[in-house]
């Protein structure tokens, strides 16, 4: 396992080094680490807890409908608090968990995710053909489930150093105050904080009522959406807060690897070893067990792509294809995937 992760990370590192930072396309296409092998063994979707023909009216959601908490089924109302507990208990050992799940390469995935999104507004040409006013405003980025500010930090760094954009602003939002506190700590006294380019919002991704409609350029959610009770509702909120032309982008673990042999090995690792390590490292087996199971419960890439479309987004790539052609990008044999959607004008 160690050698596999080592080899993969070396690939990643190479492609990172040889790619001009401002050219997204070559990094987004790099075959060495994006594999788009088709997956034929998609399991049947988990039983839906709502009748899809009867979308609940806002405010009238059947809040006690049973939902999944890992593999145990619990009432919806309880899920948010159970999830909050999980993240409260892993907040400090959180990086360890991500390292275990991603075989140590989640940092490179995050780098790749941000580089391809290319946040920030670049000056055009030496004369700066762009009107000054656009440049003045920068972009508004909303990092949902932003926890410790890992993604936000990369967004701001990319906008500033690559695109020479000193205005772009990130709001880090999370349901869990303890995770947000980690983020606050990270940015305390930083240049970004002094320049007012980062702020924090405690909110459930399914209800972003304090954020005006059509106000956000880029909505990101990294390793967060699998924890949401009503993913469709979160997608609708994303659609609402984004400006027309705005981008939804999600980085998430996938339930099944594209190669069934590797999938079996990876499952053994994640279900067998990770909760055990969680117990040893963090003294908390249950939280790690939950995290592993929540990945298994997450829809496959094709299904999730359809949910994004369902919310109204234009998905890059063609209808019905797999991998990049089908509107997503698999990372490292499909342990994780990037999904994007653009709100039509």
């Amino acid at each position, binding site marked *: 396992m160690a050698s596999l992760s080592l080899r993969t990370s070396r690939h990643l590192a190479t492609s990172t080094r040889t790619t001009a930072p401002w050219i997204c*396309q070559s990094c987004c296409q790099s075959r060495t680490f994006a594999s788009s092998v088709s997956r034929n063994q998609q399991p049947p979707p988990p039983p839906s807890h709502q009748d899809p023909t009867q979308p609940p009216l806002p405010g009238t959601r059947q809040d006690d409908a049973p939902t999944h908490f890992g593999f145990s089924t619990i009432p919806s109302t309880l899920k948010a608090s159970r999830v909050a507990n999980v993240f409260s208990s892993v907040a400090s050992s959180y990086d360890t968990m991500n390292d275990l799940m991603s075989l140590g390469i989640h940092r490179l995935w995050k780098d790749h995710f941000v580089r391809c*999104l290319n946040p920030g507004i670049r000056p055009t040409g030496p004369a700066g053909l762009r009107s000054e006013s656009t440049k003045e405003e920068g972009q508004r980025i909303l990092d949902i489930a932003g926890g410790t500010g890992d993604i936000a930090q990369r967004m701001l760094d990319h906008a500033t150093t690559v695109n020479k954009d000193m205005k772009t602003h990130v709001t880090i939002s999370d349901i869990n105050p303890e995770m947000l506190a980690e983020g606050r700590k990270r940015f305390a006294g930083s240049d970004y904080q002094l320049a007012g380019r980062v702020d924090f919002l405690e909110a459930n991704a399914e209800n972003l009522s304090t954020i005006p409609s059509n106000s956000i*350029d880029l909505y990101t959610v990294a390793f967060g959406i699998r924890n949401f009770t009503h993913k469709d509702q979160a997608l609708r909120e994303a659609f609402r807060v984004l400006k027309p*032309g705005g981008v939804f982008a999600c980085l998430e673990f996938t339930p099944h690897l594209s190669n069934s042999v590797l999938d079996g090995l990876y499952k053994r690792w994640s279900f067998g070893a990770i909760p055990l390590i969680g117990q040893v490292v963090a003294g908390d087996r249950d939280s790690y067990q939950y995290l592993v199971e929540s990945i298994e419960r997450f829809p496959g890439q094709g299904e999730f792509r359809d949910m994004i479309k369902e919310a109204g987004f234009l998905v890059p790539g063609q209808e019905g294809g797999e991998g990049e052609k089908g509107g997503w990008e698999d990372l490292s044999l499909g342990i994780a995937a990037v999904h994007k959607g*653009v709100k039509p004008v």
Partner: protein
Amino acid sequence: MSSTTALRTLLRTPASLRLLLLQTPRSTYHSYDHAEQPVYREAERTILSSALAHVPIHGFTQEALTLGAKDAGYLDISSNLFPKGTFDLVKYHLVSQRLGLKDRIQFPDENFGVGRKVRNLILERLRANVDTGIVTRWQEALAIMSLAENIPASLRELGALADEMWFLAGDTAVDASWYTKRASLSGIYAAAEIYQTTDQSTEYRDTEQFLDRRLEELRTVGGAVSGTLGWAGFQAGAMVNLLRSKGVMI
């Protein structure tokens, strides 16, 4: 042409072009097949065509793509709709000019032979590079197309262009010579297009003469198609070196 000749042609073809020849034959190969699928969605079409208008000044770059998005009422960030970035921009030019060829071309009289029609079609397609103002930037496009991950799609598109030309020229026969015809036309077109990017002569007369020499070669030597292809492959390699020497990162 016998199948052994076809096989020999295949084996002599530079490895990078072989893929093109190996595509499964279809019962009919004209472009109405390609056109049936909706090629681009509305948003993609408006952004990419606006972006192409910025290519003469900004080149085949992320800048052009972003400016195109803004012109179409989208945002800087909206270029995320194009997973292959600048290659999507190049490909849009290729696809739209291939599909537009049938409207650009008019044969003066019915007695035009297939050979002369093909010559006119190639010249017309090359003229589209001039008319859209991208010819001065086309070396950048070739550089992007020659990146390993873009080669298969670029060759597929080149093959589709050759199919379209044979179809418009009225040669719809699908027989053993199909591979050879497709390959020779692809090879000649690719070579002429590369030549065009370096042509300084008035109204691209040199390119026209270059094309005539290649077509003559094909007519007289016939089976020496592989020679032409080898030449095209060599040129592509030379092209990459030329661009590298100019500081283009490929």
